[in-house]
């Protein structure tokens, strides 16, 4: 069984990666720098850990890329798995150049056939899915949920590595927790999603109350979170945002651009409420009604 190397920015993220490595017929080997307790945690996912020690003060976690790249070269630049996050994207790019390996990001399906790796990922803002082939080594960044976690009985071991993490030129001078809420919408059974057509912050609040009454969550399109700031960024759906697969999705004033719909396409039942009969979501819904947001909120309030 060939080794598949893994890296991520938090110990818990290695669980999914270790499962992915096994599902691909490989032996999971985790590259890890941080507290030793983190390395021990990763061994519990059935992965052997190549341990690079602590991350020194003033360094950023991504400074580990230099040490990881050395270990990847030593291993003969095989298949390397990571997961979709800002930190891992930075690490992957730096390692990719250092090891002369291509980086395939946001991969939603991967298969290995001998030396050849085949991946699928979205392109054109979700308008298409692209299939790509790489012969030889590659860094594959997996989208969340690509490989379901499974029960593990094996426990890996820890091997200390000769390289240590050294602080790079970028100096960390402070960190601050953001006050904005972070919410995980992926398990919500009912989602009320507001788009530009919602009209006002008051209406967003009403939509939120209705969602809560139904035992669900409120979500939004990107402009509502980033342009208007009416909801937290973790609530916007789409290609660069969250993905939901609820029993019922109700879009209010959501036009249905593909960048958004990739985040909700797997909903079991889609309701579209829009003033504009020709909005794209009206062609991708189970039921749609031509209606303004104010009326819609009154109607949904009766549910």
């Amino acid at each position: 069984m060939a080794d598949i190397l893994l890296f991520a920015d938090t110990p818990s993220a290695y669980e999914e990666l270790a499962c992915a490595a096994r599902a691909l017929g490989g032996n999971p080997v985790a590259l890890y720098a941080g507290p030793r307790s983190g390395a021990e945690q990763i061994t519990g996912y059935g992965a052997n850990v190549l341990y690079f020690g602590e991350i020194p003060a003033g360094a950023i976690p991504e400074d580990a890329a230099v040490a990881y790249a050395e270990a990847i070269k030593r291993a003969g630049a095989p298949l390397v798995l990571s997961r979709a996050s800002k930190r891992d994207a930075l690490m992957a790019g730096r390692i990719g150049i250092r090891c002369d390996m291509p980086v395939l990001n946001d991969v939603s399906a991967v298969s290995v056939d001998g030396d050849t790796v085949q991946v699928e990922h979205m392109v054109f803002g979700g308008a298409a899915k692209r299939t790509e082939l790489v012969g030889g080594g590659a860094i594959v960044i997996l989208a969340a949920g690509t490989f379901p976690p499974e029960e593990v009985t094996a426990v890996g071991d820890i091997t200390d590595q000769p390289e240590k993490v050294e602080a790079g030129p970028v100096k960390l001078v402070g960190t601050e927790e953001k006050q904005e809420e972070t919410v995980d919408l992926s398990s919500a059974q009912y989602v009320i999603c507001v788009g530009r057509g919602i009209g006002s912050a008051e209406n967003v609040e009403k939509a939120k109350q209705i969602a809560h009454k139904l035992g669900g969550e409120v979500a939004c399109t990107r402009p509502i979170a980033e342009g208007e700031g009416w909801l937290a960024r973790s609530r916007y759906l789409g290609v660069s945002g969250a993905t939901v697969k609820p029993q019922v999705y109700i879009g209010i004033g959501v036009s249905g651009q593909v960048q958004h719909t990739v985040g909700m396409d797997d909903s079991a039942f889609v309701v579209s409420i829009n003033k504009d009969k020709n909005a794209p979501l009206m062609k991708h819904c189970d039921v749609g009604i031509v209606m303004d947001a104010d009326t819609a909120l009154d109607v949904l309030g009766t549910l």
Partner: protein
Amino acid sequence: MNIVVCYKIVPDEQDALVQPDRTLSFDRAALKIGDYDLNAVEAGAVLAEQTGATLTCLTAGGDAVEDSKIKKAILARGPQANVAVKDASLTEAGSTKTAQVLAAAVKTLDDVELVLCGEGSADRYSQQVGVQLGELLQWPVINAVTAIQLDGSQARVERTVDNVVETLEVPLPAVISVAADMNVPRIPSMKDILGAGKKPSNIVDFAAIGYTDAPEAVEVVSTLAPEQRERACTILEGSDDETVAKFVAMIREQL
């Protein structure tokens, strides 16, 4: 001091037509500047105004780099000059090749202290070009940046990762990829657009930047529209009691 901002010209995916075999046709698609690149251009324009630096925009692409409308659109947003590396192979080039070409082009420009990139390209969104460009230049590189202040020989930046805002000191020269929510890109005025037509634009080939083309590691097998889920698409019109009752009943059935 010269600030360089990278951008990609892409077909507008909203104009893509799905063919019966699920491939996409961009024959009738308008060209646009990558949505996320506009944030980098805006960040560059603001920094250039603050510091008196010159701002140069840089792209790599095929024939699209000669589109006069796009050229005006980008130069109307603040850059003083445009540089475009043109080669037919660049339209479909992957992240690493694009980064290699941009790195070669940056090396031909004088006095570059900062290269800005967007969060990801509008077509591939692999979020890799900025990162790999920095590593190729062997300059400090950072992504997900939500605020930049230039302070002598360094940039003081805020970077937002999940729920944490980091403050970082990045020595210059450096490559910085900005997050899409960093700013709201300006809408150029008619005067800006007219003025843009007079700004210099330099189109160069691989030889001029000293880049030697090589085959890419990644082979594209297919690009297909996802299979659409079959949905009933029952569309109701009217807000009379009967229609509304029918609508509510249809939702209730699913709850």
